[in-house]
């Protein structure tokens, strides 16, 4: 279990992580999704105490990471595949890390076998490919048989077989009741691995929900409508969860209403409809929309945006995502 409260990190004037609060629950894979530079790595580094927060705090399994008596047995973290002395062999690297906790060499051999490092374990890490480096990082994370596993971009540089292996590993660890927190900037990767998603953009949490509700929420029917009197149509459609935007004088996009319902209302209101196109939103699009919203949110006028409310933001366990007015158009 990882609990962050109002966790912030500022570097000078730049805010990398902006008062984020979230809980990562045991027993499932929680994906930490966001574009590069969104604050994922910084957040993870604060969880294990490499960076100290500028504000707020974060605990793992109920206590600050550094206060645990046996940190590697509480949390295993892959933060950086190349956090290894390049002249040392993989085996010696793991042996040195294990020694700090009195973890026996038999466990070192176990994680080497588990990660498929056997053939290269006695070679210097400097010659490793990115994929082998990732496997070594994962091996180090599993050394203490930890209850919480944190993996920052674990599939980076892995071959397809390795990617699949990481997926199975993450799911396997979660099914044993462990907390699994892994980051990625690829929605497609998360879709196949995570049970729960925390989406971060510009240092802020923009979604925190089960993956299915994010898919459902973003995938809500969006319908493009061409009509002679779109305003009359919109007036009758207005209601809960319905959002719309006017693209052209006679072209609008409506979200949250089935196409058939729009047609019924158009018929009743005697509005001439000459196009009615449902638009399917893919998961990738949904993610782009979420994070893009966040980018616009910051580069636009923050004060004005705040008053418009709920700008592309999803709050925890509430999948009511409202992809409102994309201002760019």
């Amino acid at each position: 279990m990882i609990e962050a409260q109002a966790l912030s990190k500022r570097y000078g004037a730049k805010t990398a992580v902006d008062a984020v609060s979230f809980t990562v629950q045991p027993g499932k894979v929680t994906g930490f999704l966001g574009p590069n530079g969104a604050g994922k790595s910084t957040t993870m580094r604060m969880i294990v105490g490499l960076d100290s927060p500028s504000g707020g705090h974060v605990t793992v399994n109920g206590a600050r990471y550094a206060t645990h008596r046996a940190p590697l047995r509480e949390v295993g973290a892959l933060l950086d595949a190349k956090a290894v002395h390049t002249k040392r062999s993989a085996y010696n690297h793991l042996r040195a890390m294990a020694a700090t906790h009195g973890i026996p060499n038999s466990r070192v051999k176990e994680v080497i076998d588990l990660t498929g490092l056997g053939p290269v374990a006695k070679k210097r890490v400097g010659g490793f490919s990115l994929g082998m480096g990732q496997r070594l990082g994962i091996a180090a994370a599993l050394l203490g048989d930890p209850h919480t596993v944190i993996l920052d971009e674990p599939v980076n540089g892995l071959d397809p077989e390795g990617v699949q292996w990481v997926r199975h590993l993450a799911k396997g660890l979660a099914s044993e009741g462990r907390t699994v927190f892994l980051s990625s900037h690829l929605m497609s990767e998360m879709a196949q691995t995570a049970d729960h998603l925390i989406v971060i953009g510009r240092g802020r949490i923009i979604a925190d929900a089960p993956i299915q509700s994010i898919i459902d929420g973003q995938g809500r029917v969006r319908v493009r409508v061409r009509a002679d009197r779109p305003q009359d149509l919109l007036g009758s459609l207005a209601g809960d969860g319905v959002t719309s935007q006017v693209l052209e004088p006679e072209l609008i996009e409506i979200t949250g209403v089935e196409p058939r319902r729009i047609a019924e209302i158009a018929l009743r209101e005697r509005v001439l409809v000459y196009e009615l196109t449902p638009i399917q939103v893919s998961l990738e699009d949904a993610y782009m929309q979420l994070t893009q919203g966040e980018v616009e949110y910051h580069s636009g006028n923050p004060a004005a945006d705040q008053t418009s409310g709920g700008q592309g933001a999803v709050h925890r366990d509430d999948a009511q995502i409202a992809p409102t007015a994309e201002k760019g158009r």
Partner: protein
Amino acid sequence: MATSTQPVPAERRSQRPRTSGPGVTFGRVLKSEWIKVTTVPSTVILIISTVVVMVGLAALFAWSQSISAEALSDPDFPAEFQAPAEGPGSPGFAALSVPSSGLIFGQLLIAALAVVLIASEWTTGMIRSTMVAVPKRTPALLAKTLVVAVVAFAVGLGSALISYLVAQPILRGEDIDFAITEDGVFQSILNTGTFLALVAIISMAIGILLRNTAGGVVTAVGIFFVLPLIVQLLSGLADWIPKAARFLPGDAGNQMVSITTLEDDLTQWEGGLVMGAWALGLLLVALLVAKKRDV
């Protein structure tokens, strides 16, 4: 690289209570740092270089003293160029400092070893693994400092002992060989190790503060080698310069290995304490900075 990956672990240990099991202790961190220090090639290379350089220098020094002694015994040699036959300045007396005579370059190699071992943690990224395993940080840095200091002590003591043994046959020709039990000799040999241990601690502190191998080595060489030279050049300018220079870490530390000390100089003990204070102070600052700083 071909890899075979095993299927998802049906980890048997998952039911084990998490609160039990061994945790981090200083002894374990010490063992971990020992493994780290002994599993990189630079350690072995620099230790061998240090011993070779120190013993080689000592042999040369012994040889030059035997030549002086030979000249002294030559009646045709002009008296004004001769070293005194006895007491401080005589070849027989100077020979007593043969075991520690390799320090002038030995200290640079040990400084380089210490800086390389600690700064490479940052340059390679290893420090993140280290700090995740030992998030309290200070035990890990302290353990590494201790390991490197002990290694440096052993290298210094060993080199001085070998130097002593190598020098005796060279000196015997002129009858200026000496026993290890002679006044101050064994203490000088022992303190060759102490001096290098303190050099190692100071260099570790510099490495922690700078987090950069090249910068750290240059700074350490500057403190132990260049600074004394500059001070020597400037010492004629004002009386206070040589007086203050006695308290530089290298100058003070060197007093530890001297056989006798002059009136104005620090004694062996005082020199050791001054250098020890430098080492302790710098290490404290480094540990405090490392504790606060983001990795």
